[in-house]
């Protein structure tokens, strides 16, 4: 029962793969997502920790991740039903099966309590998403898939190497070789410092590649740019959250071992570099989906920075993780609709989106304000919390850079998005078959409502979920 959140989607992936009807596969996908979400809500409502054995246990951070991933996936699955109706010319067997496999493996990340198992789960999410990026079967999407697979595989291989280093740090420090998080945390004081430092650096490069932190971000614009919008939402909101949780757990162990300053320097440095690289590449960006990819690089930079600030900023980092996932969901789903309607995604083809698509266009506009951290949306609150943690630590230079880079990103994204939204829609765009329907608009609208709600008033159950996760991740720091 406890592991149903993992096994149900994986079993349904097999069922969907062998379902002959093109119309039924998306419906099964959505039904599974609904069941998974119901199961997740039931699990989160129960106070006890769910799980099986030592390696698979849902602790407080895992609960937060499972809830976030399940909610985002529910919206994406409903959207997929509407989206695939416009793509009946394409085979959707692999698409639906792989999406479900991604849900199953992301849930496994939430449950994993063992560094090796966590690695297996994160690598499995990578492999399951590769066929999704490749859905359109164009030369461009093949190139994007190749880069995604090769760069992510190398990165994640380094993460395994780093995991082994951390395990060896325990062995070399005279402790028992164990890769279970509770054991590593309890024995953190005896971890051998040189191995731990090397291990943390490798893990930061490895999981940082999955996050898309600069300079390991090069696959990201290509993959997000060529994948269908809904896949972009799963990648930018779901997979990145999984990798970030892995990074937070490792930062906690490193800090508990007395190397928090070392980890913090690396995280803050790579965070600022990511924000700067993203800001530079957002200026003059003409492709809407690539714009979202660089925005994701920037958001991951903010998260890495927050993770590097020390114990006090964990709540802010987790709140921002939630806001980022929901905000990216809004943007990718809405931009996916724009792509469908115009048959293109650059500002050369897309003009007057507010006129052609009043609903999706408005969603893009409001989503833009949300992800760039404007009030009254959620990211404004979490970025403010991160900023105050920076100033509390007396790091004025970092704070100044943080603010300047946020402005740069706002300017870059605003120029690109407004160019696509304003003006007169070209006559050709009205001839495309895409019309705004409930299935492709409501999921993005629902996510936007949540981002807005979290900015105005964070509901108590959500606040408690985040606060518990933050408290669990601050033990020993």
């Amino acid at each position, binding site marked *: 029962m406890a592991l149903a959140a993992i096994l149900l989607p994986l079993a349904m992936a097999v069922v969907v793969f062998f379902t002959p009807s093109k119309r039924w596969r998306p419906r099964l996908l959505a039904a599974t997502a609904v069941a998974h979400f119901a199961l997740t809500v039931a699990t989160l409502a129960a106070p006890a920790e769910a799980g099986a054995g030592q390696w698979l246990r849902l602790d407080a951070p895992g609960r937060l991740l499972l809830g976030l991933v399940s909610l985002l996936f529910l919206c994406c699955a409903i959207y997929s039903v509407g989206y695939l109706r416009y793509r009946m010319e394409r085979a959707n067997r692999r698409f639906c099966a792989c999406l479900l496999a991604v849900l199953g493996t992301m849930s496994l990340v939430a449950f994993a309590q*063992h560094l090796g198992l966590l690695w*297996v789960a994160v690598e*499995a999410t990578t492999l399951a998403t590769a066929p999704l990026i490749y859905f359109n079967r164009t030369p461009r999407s093949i*190139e994007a898939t*190749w*880069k995604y*697979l090769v760069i992510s595989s190398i990165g994640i291989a380094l993460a395994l190497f780093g995991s082994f280093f951390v395990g060896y740090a325990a*062995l070399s420090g005279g402790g028992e*070789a164990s890769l279970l998080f509770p054991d590593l945390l309890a024995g953190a004081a005896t971890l051998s410092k040189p191995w731990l430092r090397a291990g943390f650096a490798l893990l930061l490069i490895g999981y940082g590649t999955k996050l898309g932190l600069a300079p390991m971000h090069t696959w990201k614009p*290509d993959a997000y740019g060529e994948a269908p919008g809904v896949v972009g939402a799963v990648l930018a909101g779901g997979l990145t959250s999984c990798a970030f949780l892995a990074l937070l757990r490792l930062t906690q162990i490193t800090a508990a071992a007395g190397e928090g300053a070392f980890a913090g320097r690396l995280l803050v440095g790579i965070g600022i570099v990511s924000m700067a690289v993203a800001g530079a590449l957002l200026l003059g960006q003409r492709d809407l989906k690539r714009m979202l990819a660089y925005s994701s690089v920037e958001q991951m930079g903010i998260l890495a920075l927050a993770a590097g600030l020390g114990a006090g900023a964990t709540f802010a980092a987790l709140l921002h993780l939630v806001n980022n996932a929901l905000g990216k969901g809004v943007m990718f789903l809405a931009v996916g609709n724009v792509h469908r309607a115009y048959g293109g995604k650059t500002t050369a083809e897309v003009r007057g989106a507010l006129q052609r698509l009043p609903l999706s266009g408005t969603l893009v506009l409001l989503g833009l304000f949300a992800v760039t951290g404007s009030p009254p949306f959620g990211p404004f609150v979490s970025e403010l919390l991160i900023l105050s943690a920076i100033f509390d630590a007396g790091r004025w230079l970092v704070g100044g850079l943080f603010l300047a880079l946020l402005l740069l990103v706002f300017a870059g994204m605003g120029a690109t998005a407004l160019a696509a939204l304003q003006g007169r829609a070209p006559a050709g765009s009205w001839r495309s078959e895409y019309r705004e329907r409930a299935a492709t608009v409501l999921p993005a609208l629902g996510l936007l409502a949540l981002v807005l709600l979290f900015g105005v008033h964070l509901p108590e159950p959500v606040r408690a979920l985040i606060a518990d996760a933050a408290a669990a991740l601050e033990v020993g720091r």
Partner: protein
Amino acid sequence: MTGVDSLLNSLVAALLLVNLVALGSSRIATVVRAVAVQGVILGFLAVAAHGGVSNRVLTLAAASAVLKGWLIPVILFRALRQVAIKREVEPSLGLLPSLLVGAIATVLAVVATGRLPLAETRLAPLLVPASLATVAAGFILLTTRRKAISQVLGFLVLENGIFVFGLLLVEAMPFLVEIGVLLDLFVGIFVLSIIIHHINREFASLDTRRLSLLKE
């Protein structure tokens, strides 16, 4: 020196030799065979390192040897036949320089190991430098070869190096996790070989320099 220890020494020496063969070969098929041989060596190394008594280590060694020594090479040879490319590796860094860099990396790996605290003196002084050197060889292959299939081979060598390090941690890795790692590797190579097939069809080449449609 006991019999097992001298066997360990020979296996590690063979492992490092295969790295150099992979770096110095001009034909892709030779590199595929070298990586296959390396996979089998890893299986023996796992058994030699842990006395070969426990069923767990034996199963793992056998699974790894079958996967890396047979199944993955079969997939790669099939990909090679299907795409019918010129069989040379076409490195961007010459074969001799890459051999030299590989040899230097091996020496550096030994030096670096001397500076790190090791938990015990039997396995670690052999396996740690072997692992670092193999990872380095994998990186050289990955960064200096242009054909998509050569890059997959580089990734395999990199993974082999990490596997060697994992032998030091057999107690900490649950059996299912080890199998999961191998399964991920297998699926990864399988998906990559499919993409290679499509790259060849769409770009009429496996030269990764042609993959340049996407840029700023």
